[in-house]
């Protein structure tokens, strides 16, 4: 049934593209219907697998595709896939809800949106490398148009930058994959088959960093992250939500499933060490920690509200990458949970900043928001941001805490200093979130008679039902996962165990 998430999304995209122009309401409702059905399928797939062994992949579709190359149309799911498909479903529904006010070429917008979603579903469910790569590429193109047509600040530049970075990453991945296919000598592009091919260690040593960086670019890996803040800021709200919410997860997922899954020995020590760095694993851990700290510090210095959230994504994705290279059960589990958690929380933050606040105030400058007394004028947005901010800071009770806690434990088991450095990132994370919240919503700017009059004359529009529904949905999911992480951990843990064991460690 999970495969239908893909078909349905692409079918939805096609229908949207064929809809007559000017029927904005119809386009919205169709998109919502498709997104909700996708979420329903994802939930159904997730619930149906509860209790079964989530470590074993369940084949959904397996059909010959390009027999000459051994390429199969192989869709399957294990616990990790199911969790990420669930995330995609949630992000899709929330994205549609927060795009409710798009008036410009509405049907095209949702066509691109659903195509992107379909591609993401596809990546998370593909167990054939070639197929995975196809879906991965499909997801890049709509991103470009979503930003270039419906974006804001320097949208052409940001869209092009994003696309170029993505294509460079893809090219690296593709080279790695083709080489692996050639080196394995086997006549299959199946992930499992290639994983079992006993690729020579010398080969893995250069293929691993190539593929890991290729996917890592899309995961916002420092110092290849620069597309992320500009892209997030320029993108329309729903696209920011998807970029931070699921597209960055594509990169992280590729790092885990493909790079670590296929080339586990690429992480082995080199046999020599240079200032404490003795393997690719150390290299990427350093980059991850650098991303965590750098992203947080830069976020602290931003004057644009959306850039704060953009850089915070770099920082939070650093936790995912750090968790992955711990290569232990708890750290990798934490990384996967962090993918889910950050997808939800970043989506919520972008929705509040880019949609709820910006649509009413028409500014993202913290200095201007500071004079607007938003906690009084938009109490719902203010308190929603408090909740999202608390979740983003990693306070217990929300999903971020459990995820980052696991990553930190995993990192500590691997190398304690990673944890200490990442801990600095958490502290700065509290600071920038707090600063943004104070400035944007709870500033003590004096209320002059003039400003009161102005505020009275131009009241901010009340929140609409899609905004409230979307906010409640995302905040609720983060809270539920934070309070009862077992619901996802039961799916993630066995799958991670299998993956790590298959990786020969």
């Amino acid at each position, binding site marked *: 049934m999970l495969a239908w998430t893909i078909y349905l999304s692409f079918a939805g995209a096609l229908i949207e593209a064929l809809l007559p122009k000017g029927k904005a309401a119809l386009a919205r409702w169709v998109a919502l219907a498709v997104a909700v059905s996708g979420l329903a399928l994802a939930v159904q797939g997730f619930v149906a697998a509860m209790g079964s062994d989530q470590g074993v992949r369940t084949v959904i579709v397996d059909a010959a595709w390009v027999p000459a190359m051994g390429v199969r149309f192989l869709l399957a799911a294990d616990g990790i896939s199911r969790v990420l498909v669930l995330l995609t479903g949630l992000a899709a529904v929330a994205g549609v809800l927060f795009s409710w006010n798009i008036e410009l070429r509405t049907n095209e917008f949702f066509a691109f949106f659903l195509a992107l979603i379909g591609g993401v579903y596809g990546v998370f469910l593909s167990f054939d490398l070639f197929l995975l790569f196809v879906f991965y590429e499909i997801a890049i193109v709509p991103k470009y148009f979503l930003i270039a047509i419906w974006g804001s600040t320097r949208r052409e530049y940001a869209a092009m930058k994003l696309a170029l970075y993505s294509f460079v990453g893809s090219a690296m991945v593709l080279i790695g994959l083709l080489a692996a296919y050639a080196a394995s000598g086997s006549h299959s592009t199946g992930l499992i088959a290639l994983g079992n091919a006993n690729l020579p260690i010398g080969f893995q040593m250069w293929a691993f960093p190539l593929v890991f960086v290729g996917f890592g670019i899309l995961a916002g890996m420092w110092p290849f992250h620069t597309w992320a803040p500009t892209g997030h800021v320029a993108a329309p709200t729903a696209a920011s939500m998807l970029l931070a919410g699921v597209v960055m997860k594509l990169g992280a997922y590729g790092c885990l499933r493909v790079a670590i899954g296929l080339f586990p020995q690429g992480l082995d020590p080199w046999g020599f060490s240079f200032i404490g760095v003795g393997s690719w694993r150390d290299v990427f851990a350093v980059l991850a920690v650098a991303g965590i700290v750098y992203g947080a510090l830069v976020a602290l210095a931003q004057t644009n509200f959306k850039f704060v959230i953009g850089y915070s994504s770099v920082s939070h994705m650093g936790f995912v990458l750090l968790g992955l290279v711990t290569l232990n059960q*708890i750290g990798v589990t934490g990384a996967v949970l962090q993918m889910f958690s950050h997808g939800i929380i970043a989506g919520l933050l972008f929705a509040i900043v880019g949609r709820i606040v910006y649509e009413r105030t028409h500014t993202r400058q913290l200095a201007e928001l500071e004079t607007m007394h938003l906690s009084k004028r938009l109490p719902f947005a203010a308190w929603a941001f408090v909740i999202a901010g608390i979740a983003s800071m990693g306070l217990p009770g929300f999903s971020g805490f459990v995820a980052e*806690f696991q990553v930190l434990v995993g990192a*500590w088991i691997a190398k304690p200093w990673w944890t200490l450095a990442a801990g600095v990132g958490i502290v700065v994370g509290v600071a920038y979130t707090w600063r943004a919240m104070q400035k944007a919503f709870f500033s003590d700017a004096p209320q002059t008679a003039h400003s009161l009059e102005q505020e009275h004359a131009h009241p901010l529009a009340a929140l609409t039902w899609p905004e409230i529904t979307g906010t409640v949905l995302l905040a609720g999911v983060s809270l539920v996962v934070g309070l*009862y992480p*077992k619901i996802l*951990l039961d799916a993630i843990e066995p799958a991670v165990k299998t993956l790590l064991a298959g990786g020969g460690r």
Partner: protein
Amino acid sequence: MSGIPVLTLLTVLPLVGAAIALWSGKHARGVAILTTGACVALALSVWTQLPANGSIGLVEVHKWAPSLGIEYHLGVDGLGALMLVLSAIVTLMSVDAAHRVHHQPGLYFGLVLVLESGLFGSFTALNFFHWFLFWELSLIPAFFLIKLWGGTKRGPAATQFFVYTMAGSVALLVAFLAVFVATRSMDFPHLTLLASTGELEQMVTAHLGPVTMWLAVGVLAGFAVKVPMFPFHTWLPAAYAEAPSPVTMLLTGAMSKMGVYGLLRIAIPLFGHQIAQMRTPLLVLAVATVVMGAWAAAAQKDLKRVFAYSSVNHLGYCLLGIFALAVPYSLGDAGQLASQAAALNGVILQMFNHGVTAAALFWFVALLQQRTGGHRGIDDFGGLRKPAPVFAGLMGIALFSSLGLPGLNGFVGEFLIFRGVFSLAWVASTVSILGLLVTAAVVLTVIQKVFSGPVPEHCKGFPDLHTGERMALAPVIGLMLLIGLLPQLIVNSVNPTVQNLLAHWRF
């Protein structure tokens, strides 16, 4: 009531009340009074259901996230139950005192009730994750109560309060991360058991190297900020002064106890040995807290700041008692255990007494402010015993309780602490007596300046307490007398717990 998850019920009740209060606008205070009243009753019922041998009772255990060592594990002993009763009483007092919230009362009382839930949760949790959840949960509403309803400098005060406490929390979190890595457990009773045999230190050393001492420092830092201990107290005067007085009642009456409770439930049981190694410097800091708090109180002109520093001083006695009883060697006689038990009984009593008394004092400040249009300087008043004899009498009792007059509640705790500490650390206790003297001087100055002398112009028509206020305050003052005269009401239940705790601690 066996079978009913009383502690869960107690924690959830204020949250339900908060949800209702949020939507009930002007009637929010009524909702809050009903909820907190019910919580007092429920907390008292918990108090009566304690196991007689002082062990942890009313236990609830459920699976939560087993792979992370996270369990839903609740339970209370005499210490926890007393803190529940205290939190419930102080919250009820605070809600009683806050009858002039015109600005967004629904949100105000909602936040107060969330804070109460945070208190209950952290006093009943026996698993780090669960405890930390509620520890942080209480921080958020406290921040907003200061930030949104505070005085003129509320912004910086709230931020300072939040940043200090968060920094402490991060230290705690990192320390527990390490403990979890080493032991794969976050369960307090289990970790206490490991620590009592020395296994905890061995496991930490085996996994992480010789860092146990640093972990102890991290945990101590987290609680030192909350209590607060000198020199981590600097957030406190601003926060207490800028918060609306009913919120200050909560901060000092209940939230500061979370820090002391944390020392007793977490720091000492897990790192008693390490704390005993650091005993001398810690005792110096405790004595500094006592003495500095008292002297600083003497130098203040703002009544709220006087009582804020006086709170630092009073909680310093708790620190003194706790660190004094962490003796790294055995004196080899029965006297040592008796002294430790006396000190610990005193600490726990002092927690309760200070909570009630300090909350009452800030309540009186709130009443003074209401009656004089916001005045709260120590020199702003005079001769109030003439226009308002009942007010003066009741506030006088509260002040004398703070001074530690025998017959009132404050005396018993401080007496037991000094009784215990004197034989365990006589230098520290001798120097700390200085704090008692200065506190006495401070309290007498307040009484002198506020209640006697000429009545200033703006206090001429100072109304005495009306019937409603008398009825609200009488039980509190009655409680001070009751505990002062019959301390065994508390000690009888706390002493078994004290013996039980001491038996499980390793120094």
